[in-house]
């Protein structure tokens, strides 16, 4: 079951476009998953990226 869960996350992350300077789609997906397990999700480097 763990493998299924992990592969679902990885497949979702790998499917979206990734370009330096705009990882916004992948960031949104990652944030959604982290939100389920962590106290706080924040973007700390928005000033330069």
């Amino acid at each position: 079951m763990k493998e299924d869960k992990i592969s679902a996350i990885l497949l979702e992350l790998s499917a979206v476009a990734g370009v330096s300077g705009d990882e916004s789609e992948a960031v949104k997906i990652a944030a959604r998953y982290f939100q389920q397990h962590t106290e706080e999700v924040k973007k700390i480097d928005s000033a330069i990226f």
Partner: protein
Amino acid sequence: MVTKLEEGGFLRFTPVGTIDPRTLPGQAVEIHGKKKLRGVIGAAPPHLLSAKERKETVPLDKLFIDPGLNEDSVKALVSIGDYVSLEQKPLKLKEGNIISGKALDNRAGVTALVFCAEELNALRHQADVCFVASLQEEVGLRGAMTNAYNLEPDLAIIIDVTHGDGPGLDDRSVFKIGAGPAIAIGPNLHPVLTRRLEEIAKERFLPHQKEPIPGHSGTDAWAFQVSREGIPTALLSIPLRYMHTAVELISLDDLLALSKLISYFAGSLDRLFLEELKNC
């Protein structure tokens, strides 16, 4: 990145970061212009090349993107500087245990962190653990620099990928897929922190491999290690085949073992160990 709009609606491009140019001809791409467009990477057909040219890898400056649109439409929708990404959809191989796709370097690392966060919810741990998905590693570790400065952690464990095994490769330079994450050893990494990770892997019967790196690790560990007055840093890598191509390949077993190793490590952290790190 698009560098030139050619006559006839074709686009010239240059890589951002490193990509293997041998793998580009024939790839489907997504062009991030005023709206998203699909395209294919084309090159002159072999029938029209000289015998010498047919034997050589097509250089990047001979490749172009064909969005299948006329010149006016391309000019209206695409600008110099627009980004282009590979369109490869990820694949499940070996009954889902092996994953192949683009950007597994390093979205596999982000996935490992998500699972690690889930595991830590079930463990008692004293330490505050921050999970960082940093940007622009491929163009100079820039996200790692700002994150290391901002967070000022007591220690850092970097997750990256390393070269997986395969036909024709020197087995001293590659790591077996499915045999566990590689724990890096070398001047970029803190010896006490690295040793502790190895000990935990052994105690918990987690498969792992050792990766000697005599200099620059080429990872975010390089930036973290020298941030502020220095941060004790370790590096764990998932073995990955076909690095920087659209069909990078990893084993979920390695990803799982890496997540567990970090979870158990974080669960074991106490003030005594942090003092030991500071004093060595």
